[in-house]
């Protein structure tokens, strides 16, 4: 069962501050974010954290009591010189949180180590703990985005860098929602190189626990993070998703096969020729087509899918069998109408041990394996551009991925949400899809070939928007379902399964969001392809 906190998120979260800072700077500079580096507009430090132009994507220490991040000013765009950024980015939605971090850098690059974070939801106290050292001429980068949405969470981590490359290891995280206790773990980094950032979203109810460490070759992309999670006691499953890294050793920052550029609605990947080493760009993974905006979308929502899925499987208390894990997955990984992202994995999904209570950890690992590599690929690709473009990109992702960040998406109840969606009559399917995606809806394929978009809300209701194709009749009767149409419906969230629901559980709404029993009003003409 989902336990969602109905409290509104703090408006002045660190992440919000960062994003707003980025946007403000871009606006004041009169340039688009992606051209910051070209303009020499490296972002300035924010709080006690720092935004580094040379690799560290986004860091910001928590302003909550107990935090102790340290950071040096950002390094120049070239990436030479030493700099350190400590601290992490926390979004503590409704619970108290504490964060502590320390970092030490050395010459020749950027180093950072992660914080130790802990908080207790019910107890209101948190214990931050973190330590780490980094030395050598390499680069260490990690930015963590924590979103502790509605419950307590804790984390502890340390990193140790080494010469000749980047070094990082992931945080160890632990929390227990019900008992309110915290057990912060520690990670140990050796001479392995890990360029990544972590995006954590613990966004439904109880926090999960996980630890990670990962490594990759020097100067290359992160690969295969190790992810672990716990499912005990009804907790969710935490995980780490590597985000972005842009190793810039020296010289002009652009040396990749493409760049990510921001636009009003999000991010686009623009394919360009390789201009350099290709360390963080290059070809897509074997078997995958060239990068395109589908990949962007997939990356955007990859972490979200994972967390929703994991939170979804975590809702079974006591544990239960999931007869069709693929269906379960489809509810949160819906952007796969052609099986593109699930190709080759369906059989595994079907044969997966699915006793979640007993197999929670394995299940989480499986899921990490299932989506993780591609997500990592997309993530790495996302940094294929200038550091500042990556910075903006990260901020954009964070903004899109998290309903708490964008105020428009942080709607507390179904009535507000349906009003916020606005009228859909006359809008094309793609216009509606864009709108709903922006608002954090997930979609799945309907049995009639249409699409079902759902967004669950803290009040226990789910708003569903169904975009239906016209119904073919032997003899056209002029009925409202004979043209492309849209339905707005409200469903109790606990009645939604795999992104869909039984017809009898839905209450039809007209285009103004008013409940209606008139089927002619609930068939809203729109959704043309």
């Amino acid at each position, binding site marked *: 069962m989902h336990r969602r906190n109905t409290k509104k998120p703090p408006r002045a979260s660190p992440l919000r501050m960062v994003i707003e800072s980025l946007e403000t700077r871009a606006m004041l500079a009169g340039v688009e974010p992606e051209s910051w580096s070209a303009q020499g507009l490296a972002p300035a430090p924010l709080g006690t954290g720092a935004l580094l132009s040379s690799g560290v994507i986004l860091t910001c220490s928590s302003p909550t009591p107990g935090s102790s991040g340290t950071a040096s000013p950002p390094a120049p765009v070239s990436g030479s010189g030493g700099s350190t950024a400590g601290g992490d980015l926390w979004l503590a939605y409704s619970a108290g949180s504490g964060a502590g971090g320390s970092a030490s850098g050395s010459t020749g690059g950027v180093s950072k180590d992660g914080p130790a974070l802990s908080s207790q939801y019910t107890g209101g106290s948190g214990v931050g703990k973190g330590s780490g050292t980094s030395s050598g001429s390499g680069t260490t980068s990690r930015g963590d985005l924590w979103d502790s949405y509605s419950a307590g969470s804790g984390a502890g981590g340390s990193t140790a860098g080494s010469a000749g490359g980047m070094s990082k290891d992931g945080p160890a995280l632990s929390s227990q929602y019900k008992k309110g206790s915290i057990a912060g773990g520690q990670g140990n980094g050796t001479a392995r190189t890990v360029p990544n950032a972590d995006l954590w979203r613990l966004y439904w109810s109880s926090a999960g626990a996980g630890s990670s460490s990962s490594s990759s070759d020097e100067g290359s992309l992160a690969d295969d993070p190790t992810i672990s999670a716990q499912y005990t006691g009804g907790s969710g499953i935490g995980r780490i998703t590597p985000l972005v890294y842009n190793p810039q050793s020296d010289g002009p920052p652009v040396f990749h096969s493409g760049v990510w550029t921001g636009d009003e609605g999000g991010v686009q990947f623009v394919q360009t020729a390789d201009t350099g080493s290709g360390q963080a760009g290059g070809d897509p993974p074997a078997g995958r087509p060239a990068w395109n905006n589908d990949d962007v979308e997939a990356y955007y929502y990859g972490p979200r899918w994972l967390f929703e899925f994991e939170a979804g499987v975590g809702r079974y208390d006591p544990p239960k069998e999931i007869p069709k894990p693929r269906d379960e997955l489809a509810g949160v990984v819906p952007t796969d109408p052609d099986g593109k992202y699930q190709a080759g994995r369906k059989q595994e999904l079907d044969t997966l041990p699915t006793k979640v209570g007993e197999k929670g950890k394995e299940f989480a690992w499986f899921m990490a394996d299932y989506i993780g590599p591609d997500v990592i690929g997309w993530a790495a690709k996302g940094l294929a551009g200038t550091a500042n473009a990556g910075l903006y990109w990260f901020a954009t992702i964070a903004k899109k991925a998290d309903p708490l960040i964008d105020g428009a998406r942080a709607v507390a109840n179904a009535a507000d949400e349906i009003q916020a969606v606005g009228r859909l009559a006359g809008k094309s399917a793609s216009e509606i899809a864009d709108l709903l995606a922006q608002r954090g809806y997930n979609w799945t394929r309907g049995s009639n070939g249409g699409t079902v978009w759902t967004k669950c809300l803290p009040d226990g209701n789910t708003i569903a928007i169904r975009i239906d194709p016209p119904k073919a009749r*032997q003899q056209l009767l002029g009925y409202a379902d004979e043209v492309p149409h849209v339905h707005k419906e409200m469903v109790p969230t606990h009645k939604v399964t795999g992104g869909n629901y039984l017809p009898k559980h839905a209450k039809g709404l007209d285009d103004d969001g008013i409940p209606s029993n008139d*089927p002619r009003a*609930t068939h809203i003409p729109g959704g043309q392809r």
Partner: protein
Amino acid sequence: MTCDLRQLAAAIRSATHGIDSLADLVVATRDPVATRGIVHAMSRAEGELGHDDSLSMTRLLNDLESLAIEDDVTACCMMPYLWELASDVLGAHDITNAVDLWLAQVSDPRIAVHVQYLAEHGGDVYVREHFQRLVGE
């Protein structure tokens, strides 16, 4: 009730609505219990053909819409029971929506009997509430 429900269902199933079958059907659909039985028999026949629930509901709707070309009131007498069945099938919204459109379009006292029946005797509270709303309009 002397009609062979399965025979009627088979007749509808094959979309060969001979006048005899249709006449029988008209008689049968005066009785909510019998009408519900016909629709359920049709549904079971679909299941025996190996169709999944979603496809079964689609085929049933097509059959009833074919019947409606000949006798829309009789078809609409049966459609509420199709709504009841389809409302329990994940994602069969197009079926229930289509039935709702039919019931909004075709009005007849014979149909109202069935709507009233399901408002009182629907399979569960959701079904009953749905038809209670239709009765109230």
